């Protein structure tokens, strides 16, 4: 059996003008797309593009709350099932944006965020993890915090961290518990 080619062929439809039956307008830029491909990959797109509201008949759909590169990466994922590696340095940031934008990317995004976890991104990642229900990500971040008291201090001092605690008070408790258990382990050793 020759290797499957469907994925690759569908991927080639990405941003293809000829077969496009809808356009997305994102902050001035236009992206052509095929309704059925999008509908196949997401029930939300299905409801939007094939449903009975405005968007069904619209030729262009405006998207205001997403940055262009994020949007492009999202569509890249939809058409190829892969997270694009275009923006290497800011991959974590991209992943954060995408996590917001698309549920399905969750796992890949979680992986990316974890790999590039540092003092600067820890707090917001924690908020993301809590908001979007990523328990694995949360766990990793907690251990990250707990592993080094230095880092924890820096993180907890940031403005970001204050926002997070305000919105999700329970996180504070979880951090304390994590620290306590880490300490006792240390003491046991």
């Amino acid at each position, binding site marked *: 059996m020759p290797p499957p080619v469907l994925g690759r062929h569908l991927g080639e439809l990405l941003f293809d003008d000829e077969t496009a039956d809808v356009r997305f307008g994102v902050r001035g830029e236009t992206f052509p797309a095929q309704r059925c491909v999008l509908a196949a990959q997401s029930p939300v797109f299905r409801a939007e593009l094939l449903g009975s*509201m405005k968007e069904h008949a619209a030729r262009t759909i405006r998207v205001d709350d997403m940055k262009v590169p994020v949007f492009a990466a999202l569509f890249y994922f939809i058409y190829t099932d892969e997270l694009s590696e275009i923006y290497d340095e800011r991959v974590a*940031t991209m992943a954060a944006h995408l996590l917001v934008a698309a549920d399905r990317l969750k796992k890949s995004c979680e992986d990316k965020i974890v790999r590039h976890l540092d003092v600067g*991104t820890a707090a917001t990642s924690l908020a993301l993890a809590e908001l979007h229900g990523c328990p694995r990500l949360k766990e990793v971040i907690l251990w990250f915090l707990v592993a080094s008291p230095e880092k924890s201090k820096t993180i907890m001092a940031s403005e970001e961290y204050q*926002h997070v605690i305000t919105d999700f008070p329970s996180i504070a408790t979880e951090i304390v518990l994590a620290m306590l258990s880490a300490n006792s382990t240390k003491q046991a050793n």
Partner: protein
Amino acid sequence: MNSQKKRTNKIEPFRHRVDSDPKSFDKSWKKLEDAIREIYNHNASGLSFEELYRTAYNLVLHKHGLKLYDKLTENLKGHLKEMCRSIEDTQGSLFLEELQRRWADHNKALQMIRDILMYMDRTFVTTNKKTPVFDLGLELWRDIVVRAPKIHGRLLDTLLELIHRERMGEMINRGLMRSTTKMLMDLGSSVYHDDFEKPFLEVSASFYSGESQQFIECCDCGEYLKKAERRLAEELERVSQYMDAKTTDKITSVVDTEMLSNHMQRLILMENSGLVNMFVDDKHEDLSRMYNLFKRVPDGHSTIRSVMASHVKESGKALVSDPEKIKDPVEFVQRLLNEKDKYDEIISISFSNDKAFQNALNSSFENFINLNNRSPEFISLFVDDKLRKGVKGANEEDVETVLDKVMMLFRYLQEKDVFEKYYKQHLAKRLLSGKTTSDEAERSMLVKLKTECGYQFTSKLEGMFNDLKTSHDTMQSFYANLSGDTDSPTISVQILTTGSWPTQPCTPCKLPPEIVDISEKFRAFYLGTHNGRRLTWQTNMGNADIKAMFGGRRHELNVSTYQMCVLMLFNSADGLTYGDIEQATGIPHADLKRCLQSLACVKGKNVLRKEPMSKDISEDDTFHYNDKFTSKLVKVKIGTVVAQKETEPEKLETRQRVEEDRKPQIEAAIVRIMKSRRVLDHNSIITEVTKQLQSRFLPNPVVIKKRIESLIEREFLERDKVDRKLYRYLA
């Protein structure tokens, strides 16, 4: 350059923003609320899915899921209450239509609402184990609209009313029915069941209970069954058109019970039109219908079977006991064959060759055929008749068919050994008088009997055939060897091996001198080649052809040996008394009487004249040659030895012989069984012996007991000293 590019392509890091506007929930909700209203007003096309979805998404993200859910529930309830009112207010026949219209609207709206709130469904609803949006919408519809007090009862009544009208012949809107029942099913199979199916079945049961009562009072069995069949088909069609498939079995079960089960006995036993009448009149279509309908009800088929069995037994019993009907044995058997054909046809056409029915028929036949203990004899006479005369207008195949059918009757006989005895007698007469139409058919019959009963049954019969063939060869070589003397009468001798043939012991009578010579020559010839054997003339079985002149006309008389002896006397004497004849011929008394009767008292065959002219032969009678005898035919047959139904004394004799023959067979069976089992109790012996012999006859337990005692006397067996019922084999 590079850093500039980097800056333009730089993505800002994600910042988590706190939502600080307390009124933001209300604003967002208002958007959604308005949108829902537009949706219910069929104005969805003006709405932006993007916006609404995002609004709901943000609400959920900011932990307002519960509030959103509750607001949604309230909102839906409001819309539904409005719909409810408009449905309630609809008059008369438009009620169902309005309900359907609103249901369709609600469904469409729900889908769109669900799409907008998809994020809530997938996160908040799942985590908090709430009912998903779409299902919530269905539940609310069920509780607020369908089960509204003013709608619930009216809905059910409307549906049942329409079904009733359709049953009474009206055309109704089936599409509307279909969409209404589908709505109930969408609300849950328990809703469909409680709010429609259960009351539907109850109402149907009472409808069919009433209707069936009505029908059974005014229709005969055949008509009733047609109506029941029709109603059954209607209900099946109705369910397939506008109800859920799983109602099919439930409603057909109701019809089966009310129309068929409850009236089964009355229908089957209905006077003038019931099952028995259908049998009598060969109503194949009605029987077929009854078979198919009663297949569906418990005990349906078993009841039909038992009525059939007892009817066949009854009419069979009448057949075999009616003195009129048993006068002619051939007619008797033909009637049995006709009866069998009739029921075979019924079972094949109307009962799809059902084996259980075939078995019931067989046991009924077995039952009544054996009620008349002359059945074995009559069946043999029937076969005899067919083999003599052939089957009218039939070819070889037809004869085969008839014989096969007769074999079926043969199988039913319990006293097959009686049949064997008669068959032998009849076959002997056929062979000796040369009166069989087809050798093929005779052989074929033998093969059938051999297949059925084994080699022992037919070995002697085959011996009879062989004897004739051998005799034929012997005769040829006798005449080849004979020299001179062409004046002697021609003889044809059949040499019968004793034991193969059913001969009565016979003292040979005195043969006329014209015959004695040639017959002694033959005896010498035969014994010359077969030393050690003994030949005895069976003068009670032969026949002769005599040339005679009556009033100037030549005739050829075909007579029995006895008759020949008597007639030849008149060559040398004119008038003879009974006593003269008896002395001269040596023919036994009874045979002589019969013989003289056939020669002198039968119209058209009276070659002798008797004085006095009475019908009976008395010892004072005198006989003369009757030169006034005339016949249109040149060849006159007088009293051939034809197989006839036995007279009472003959019958008793045969039966006695049969009983005698059975004794050794029973004893042989007992010994065989005891030899292998060594010790056995009385009842088990009876059972085993019966089992071993039942292919030939049914042994009488009393006779078995006597045989056991005889064997004990002869020290083959002994009784156990402790248990009197136990027997032991003595080696």
